[in-house]
C-alpha cells in the first residue's frame, strides 16, 4: 500500500514542485530525481507482487497483478530515462527555440502529471477512474504538443485534443454500458465498476450489452492506441511536440491505452464465450499494421516516420492479443517501448544538430557516434532484425499466427517487408554521407540510448527466467 502511494504520489508532488520552479537551472535534475524515485518505488511494488502475489488495496480502489505491475515498472523506467535525455535536450531547446520560463515550467510540470495519469490508469481497479486517468493523460499532453506555439504545433494539438476527446467519449459510453450490465449482477454503487468484482462475475454479465460496450470501448481507447482509421492525430502530435514528449507518447501512452483495451477484453470475453472481441482486435490490428506500413513510404519528416512506425507496432500488438499470443504481445510491448524511445532520443539530437526535421536535409549522423549508431541500431532493432528483442517477439507472433490464423501470415509479412524497405532506406541516407550541422550547446545524452538498446539486445539473446515467468503469469491472466 505504501508503495502504491509512493508510485502515484511522487510524480504528483514532482509536478506540483516543478510548476513553481520548473524554469530554474536545476529543474531538469529535479525532474529526473522525481522520476528516479518513482522508478524505485515501482521496483519495490513489483517486488511485493513477486513475493506475495496480486493485491487489492485502499478500499479496493487499486489492484495490482503481474499484468499491470510489469507495465508500471516499464512506464516508470522509460519515464526516468526520458528525463535523463530531456536534461540536455531541453537545455538546448530553451536556447534554440527561445522558450520562456513559463513554457519551461509548463513542460516540466506537465511531464510529471502525465506520468501520474498513466500510472493511475495502470494501477486503478475502477473502470471509471481508468477512463478519467486516460482523459487526464490527453489533457496533460495537449499543451505539451503545442509547446512551441507554431502554427503546425497548434494545429496538431487541436487535432489531438478533438480526436482523442471524441474517441474517449465513446469509451465513456462503453464504460456506462458495462456499469449498466454489472449493476444488475453486483448491485448499484461503488463496487459495480471495480475490475476485480467484474472479473469474478463476468460469466453472468449480459452478453448483448457487453458486446455493444466493447465496440464503443475499442473505438474509444483504440483512438489513443492509434488504431487505423482513428490514427490521424498520432503522427502530427509526435512530429510537433518536443522530442521527449514524442518518446513517452510512443513508448508509454500507447501501451497504457492498449492495456485498457485488453483489460476490457478480458471481461467481454468471459461474458460472451465467443471470439467476438478477439476478432475485432484481429481486424483492427491487421488493418493498422498494413495501412501504417504503406504510409511509412511517403513520409518526409523524421518524427512523423517513427510516429507511423509506432502505429504499425501498436497494430501488431493488438493483433497479437487478438490471436491469443499474449506472451509475445507483452514482450513486444516491452521491446517496442524501449526501442522506440531510444530512437526518439537519437532523433531528437539529430534534429537539433541539423536544425530540421526533413529527412532529406539530415546527413552524416555517423560522425556523432551515439546519435548515428543509436539511430542505425535502433532502426535495425525496430525493424525486427536479429539479434534484437523485437525479432524474438515478432517471430513469436508470426509463428503463433501461422498456427491459429494462417491466412494472416502473408499480410503481416508483406507489411513488415514494406516497413523495412521504407525505414531502412531513409535511415541509411541520414546516417551516412557528408556531415552537416552545428555543435550542440549541451552534449547529447548517450547513456539512455545505449542503455535501452543494450536491454533490447539482451532481451533478444536471453530472457532471464524470472522475467519469462512473469510474462507467462501475465499472459495467463489475460487468458
Amino acid at each position, binding site marked *: 500500500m505504501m508503495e502504491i502511494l509512493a508510485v502515484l504520489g511522487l510524480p504528483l508532488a514532482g509536478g506540483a514542485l516543478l510548476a513553481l520552479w520548473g524554469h530554474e537551472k536545476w529543474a531538469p535534475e529535479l525532474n529526473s530525481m522525481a522520476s528516479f524515485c518513482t522508478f524505485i518505488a515501482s521496483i519495490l511494488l513489483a517486488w511485493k507482487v513477486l513475493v506475495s502475489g496480486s493485491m487489492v488495496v485502499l478500499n479496493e480502489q487499486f489492484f495490482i497483478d503481474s499484468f499491470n505491475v510489469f507495465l508500471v515498472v516499464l512506464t516508470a523506467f522509460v519515464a526516468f530515462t526520458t528525463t535523463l535525455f530531456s536534461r540536455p535536450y531541453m537545455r538546448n531547446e530553451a536556447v534554440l527555440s527561445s522558450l520562456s520560463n513559463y513554457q519551461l515550467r509548463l513542460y516540466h510540470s506537465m511531464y510529471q502529471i502525465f506520468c501520474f495519469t498513466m500510472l493511475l490508469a495502470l494501477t486503478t481497479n*475502477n473502470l*471509471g*477512474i481508468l*477512463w*478519467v486517468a486516460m*482523459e*487526464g493523460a490527453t*489533457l496533460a499532453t*495537449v*499543451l505539451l504538443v*503545442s509547446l512551441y*506555439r*507554431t*502554427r503546425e504545433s*497548434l*494545429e*496538431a*494539438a*487541436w*487535432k489531438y*485534443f*478533438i480526436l482523442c*476527446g*471524441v474517441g474517449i*467519449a465513446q469509451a*465513456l*459510453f462503453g*464504460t*456506462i*454500458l458495462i*456499469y*449498466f450490465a454489472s*449493476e*444488475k449482477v453486483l448491485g*448499484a*454503487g*461503488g463496487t*459495480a*465498476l471495480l475490475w476485480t468484482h467484474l472479473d469474478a462475475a463476468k460469466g453472468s454479465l*449480459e452478453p*448483448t*450489452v457487453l458486446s*455493444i460496450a466493447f465496440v464503443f470501448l475499442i473505438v474509444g481507447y483504440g483512438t489513443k492506441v492509434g488504431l487505423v482509421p482513428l490514427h*490521424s492525430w498520432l503522427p*502530427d502530435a509526435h512530429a510537433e511536440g518536443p522530442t521527449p514528449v514524442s518518446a513517452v507518447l510512443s513508448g508509454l501512452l500507447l501501451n497504457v491505452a492498449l492495456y485498457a483495451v485488453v483489460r476490457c477484453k478480458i471481461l467481454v470475453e468471459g461474458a460472451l464465450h465467443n471470439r467476438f472481441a478477439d476478432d475485432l482486435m484481429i481486424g483492427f490490428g491487421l488493418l493498422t499494421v498494413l495501412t501504417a506500413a504503406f*504510409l511509412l513510404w*511517403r*513520409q518526409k519528416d523524421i518524427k512523423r516516420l517513427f510516429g507511423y512506425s509506432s502505429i504499425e507496432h501498436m497494430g501488431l500488438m493488438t493483433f497479437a492479443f487478438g490471436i491469443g499470443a499474449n506472451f509475445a504481445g507483452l514482450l513486444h510491448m516491452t521491446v517496442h517501448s524501449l526501442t522506440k524511445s531510444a530512437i526518439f532520443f537519437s532523433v531528437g539530437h539529430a534534429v537539433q544538430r541539423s536544425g530540421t526535421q526533413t529527412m532529406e536535409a539530415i546527413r552524416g549522423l555517423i560522425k556523432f557516434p551515439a546519435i548515428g549508431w543509436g539511430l542505425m541500431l535502433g532502426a535495425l532493432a525496430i525493424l525486427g532484425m536479429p539479434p534484437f528483442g523485437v525479432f524474438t517477439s515478432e517471430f513469436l507472433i508470426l509463428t503463433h499466427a501461422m498456427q491459429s490464423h494462417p491466412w494472416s501470415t502473408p499480410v503481416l509479412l508483406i507489411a513488415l517487408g514494406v516497413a523495412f524497405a521504407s525505414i531502412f532506406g531513409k535511415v541509411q541516407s541520414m546516417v551516412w554521407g557528408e556531415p552537416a550541422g552545428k555543435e550542440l550547446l549541451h552534449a547529447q545524452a548517450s547513456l539512455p540510448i545505449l542503455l535501452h538498446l543494450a536491454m533490447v539486445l539482451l532481451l533478444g539473446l536471453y530472457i532471464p527466467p524470472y522475467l519469462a515467468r512473469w510474462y507467462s503469469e501475465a499472459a495467463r491472466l489475460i487468458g
Partner: protein
Amino acid sequence: MALSSQFINLLASILLLLAFAMLSQRRIRSLIRLFMVQGMTLAVSTVVIASTTNQSHLYYSALLTFSLKVVILPWILFRMIRQLNVEWDVETLINIPSTMLVGIAIVIVSFNLALPISHLAGTITRSTIGIAMACVLLSLLMMITRSKAISQVIGFLSMENGLFFAATSTTYGMPMVVELGVALDVLVGVLILGVFFFQIREKFESLDLKHLEKAEEE
C-alpha cells in the same frame, strides 16, 4: 409514478429538441445559451429521477451538473468570447437543411441501436436511452460540421451532456467518484482550451479553423 415518468420523457424530448436547435444555431452567443438550457434540463431531469426513485446520490450529481454546466462553464465561455471579441460571430459554412436531414437519420439509427439495451433496463427512464444516444451522436455531427473552434468545443461539451444523460437514464448514474472525476476532466479541459484559444488567436488572427492549413493526411 406515471406522472413523473411522463415528466422525464418530456424533459428527454426537450433535450432532443435542444440538440437539433444547437445543430442549426449559427450564432455563438446563442449556442452557449442553448448549452446552458441543456444543462438546466439535465439537472432538472436528474432531480426528478432522484426524487421518484429515492436515489439520494443523484441529488449530488444534479447539484454538480447545475453548478458546472449552468454556472461555471457558460460563465467561462461567455468570458472567453468577450475577451476574444468573437461575441457576434456567425458560422457561415453550414448547410442547415441537409444537416437536419442527416440528424433525423441519426435519431432513427440510435433508437434502433438502443432497442436491445432499453429492453433490458429496469429503470423507469428506459425509454429515454435512445434519446441519450441520439444526443451524443447529434453533438458529434455538430462537431464535424462546424469550423469555429468554440462551436466545436460546445459540441464536445454537449456530447458529454448526452453521455451524462445516458448514465442517469440507464443506471441512475455512475458511482460518485467517477462522476467527480469526469466533471474534473471536463473543467480542466475547458480551462486548457481557453489557454489554447488565445494561442490559436495569436498565431492565426482568427478562431476559424478553416484558416488552418489542411493537415497533410499522409
